């Protein structure tokens, strides 16, 4: 096949997804009127639509492309990633979902300020939200570049530019309301884009089964423990579990979605539907990983395992059907970049517009929506430029860092803030610094210094197992030492967090 024809399915797929995204965003625009629409869709999104939107936003490039490639390369221990990304929602459901919605705050910094009555805690939280958001946006932009290069042979800079422009167009025009429709559409697109090819490929495999003998599998490919096993393998696996199970609740784009529910009960039901939607989706990437082991083992050797989902259809099914399936998975991958980037941009822009662009400067103050639009431009430009400047940073590692930092900072803040009356502003700040600096410095050091062996390297590569307890202990100890600083409204705030809205109570 000539290079020109090879690129056709990918070009058509990317164009269709982009046009559909913009069209749905514009359609949703008709419903977007107020600042509240921009931030939280005026809190009227029903559980099923909201759950599809959360699923669409959450399933990023790491889920759509990364998991299959990791499973192909390393085997069953990589199954802990999708398991952790789903189980994180169960932890979120039982400890955080309803109280977070009932707190009535827009963003994580809002929650911290309302709960602890402190502008300083708010400032620290805003800083962490922006840091996590940019860390997570960077690999999305880079992944888009790699996908377009793999699918249509485009230069690496084209992907980040297209994603950044589409996200900006949607976010600045319609805000949260129109994005909700876009995200919901993209969940179902991503599910279809993995499900249909997987069904065809499994059928092909079943047909081939009589003629091909399964290649000999090394034993540890089926063991769900980090490579090498032993004490270090066990530590890495458990640390990954801690980071993903507890980190989900601290991701800014996940949390901001909970404010769009009508009430606490709806927030719980939404989360339950999300658990189901993620469970269905995550059945699929391992299928690609396992089939890749039989049909595309050469991708591992050439270091292109991330492209497995994109290349497997053509390797297994020649001709037009293979081209159509390739178009479908390319569309799904592109939807993954667009939806996750949009959600992260909304979250970062929400915080930036409240704490930076919405402030009064020299006597003038921007209107709510204008401040939000300006903030969205900043939120997209910084990671997009970084992705263009440093196109070969470790994609999976950056996402892993985001989870570890979220688990080490916002997880203790949310859990102690919701369930413990004794938390003080001083304790929260001390804990945020301990957890954030611990996890951030550890993974930053690993990224910069490269490979090394032994326990020290293992502890630094997967810091969550020690940095999360460190943050919890610091928050509790410092809060205990500053007991006089427990806010006077704590009791009233607990009433607001935990009582059903239908009850007539004074919620402060």
């Amino acid at each position, binding site marked *: 096949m000539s290079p020109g024809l090879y690129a056709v399915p990918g070009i058509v797929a990317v164009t269709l997804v982009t046009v559909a995204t913009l069209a749905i965003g514009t359609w949703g625009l008709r419903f977007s009127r107020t600042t509240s629409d921009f931030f939280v869709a005026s809190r009227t999104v029903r559980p099923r639509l909201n759950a599809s939107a959360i699923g669409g936003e959450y399933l990023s490039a790491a889920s759509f492309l990364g998991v299959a490639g990791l499973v192909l390369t390393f085997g*069953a221990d990589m199954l802990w990633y999708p398991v952790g990304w789903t189980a994180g929602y169960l932890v979120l459901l*039982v400890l955080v979902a309803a109280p977070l919605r009932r707190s009535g705050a827009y963003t994580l910094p809002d929650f911290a300020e309302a709960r602890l009555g402190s502008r300083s805690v708010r400032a620290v939280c805003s800083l962490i939200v922006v840091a996590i958001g940019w860390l997570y946006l960077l690999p999305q932009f880079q992944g888009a570049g790699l996908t377009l290069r793999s699918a249509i042979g485009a230069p690496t800079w084209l992907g980040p530019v297209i994603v950044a422009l589409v996200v900006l167009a949607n976010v600045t025009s319609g805000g949260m309301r129109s994005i909700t429709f876009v995200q919901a559409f993209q969940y179902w697109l991503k599910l279809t884009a993995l499900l249909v090819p997987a069904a065809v490929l499994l059928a092909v495999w079943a047909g081939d089964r009589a003629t091909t003998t399964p290649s000999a599998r090394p034993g540890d490919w089926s*063991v769900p423990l980090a490579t090498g096993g032993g004490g270090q393998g066990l530590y890495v696996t458990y640390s990954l579990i801690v980071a993903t199970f507890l980190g989900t609740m601290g991701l800014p784009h996940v949390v901001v979605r909970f404010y769009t529910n009508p009430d606490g*009960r709806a927030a719980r039901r939404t989360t339950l539907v999300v*658990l189901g939607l993620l469970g269905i989706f995550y059945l699929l990437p391992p299928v690609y990983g396992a089939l890749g082991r039989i049909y595309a083992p050469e991708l591992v050797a050439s270091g292109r395992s991330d492209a497995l989902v994109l290349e497997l259809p053509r390797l297994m099914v020649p001709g037009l059907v293979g081209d159509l399936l390739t178009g479908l998975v390319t569309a799904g991958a592109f939807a993954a970049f667009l939806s996750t980037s949009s959600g992260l941009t909304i979250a970062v822009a929400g915080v930036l517009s409240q704490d930076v662009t919405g402030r009064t400067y020299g006597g003038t103050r921007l209107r709510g929506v204008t401040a939000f639009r300006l903030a969205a431009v900043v939120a997209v430009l910084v990671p997009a430029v970084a992705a263009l400047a440093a196109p070969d940073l470790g994609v999976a590692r950056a996402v892993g860092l985001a989870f570890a930092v979220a688990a080490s900072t916002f997880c203790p803040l949310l859990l102690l803030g919701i*369930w413990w009356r004794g938390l003080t502003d001083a304790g929260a700040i001390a804990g945020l610094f301990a957890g954030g600096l611990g996890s951030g410095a550890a993974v930053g050091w690993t990224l910069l210094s490269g490979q090394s062996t032994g326990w020290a390297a293992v502890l630094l590569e997967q810091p969550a197992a020690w940095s999360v307890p460190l943050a919890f202990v610091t928050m509790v100890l410092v809060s205990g030492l500053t007991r006089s600083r427990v806010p006077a409204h704590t009791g009233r705030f607990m009433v607001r967090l935990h*009582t059903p809205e*239908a*009850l007539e109570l004074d919620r402060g």
Partner: protein
Amino acid sequence: MTEPSRPERVRVAGPARRRTPSARTRDIDAETRLGGMYMGSLLREQLRLALGVLGTLALTVGLLPLLFHLAPGLGTLHVLGLPLGWLLLGVLVYPLLVLLGWVYVRRAERNERHFADLMAGENR
């Protein structure tokens, strides 16, 4: 010619809220010791439920790495044509998560109903 009569302005209001100014909600509003006890009991119930669900998660999914560490032979075991680790982590864990979430939502809503009944003064 007479001006067409303007339709009367209709005030649209939400559904009437359950107004239960019982002594018990006043206790909570005034933050009396008794009000604190009511709130404490709600918090304890919900936290106990949450920890129960998470404990179940820890004792099932959470023990899998340790299990495969202590009994490496499990890695070669095949069930229903799939390696055991794949079957557990690739398939079975997801229905378990949804089931745990479903049980939690039911019980959390029941706890809240009981609390609302308590506030309304219905003793059970």
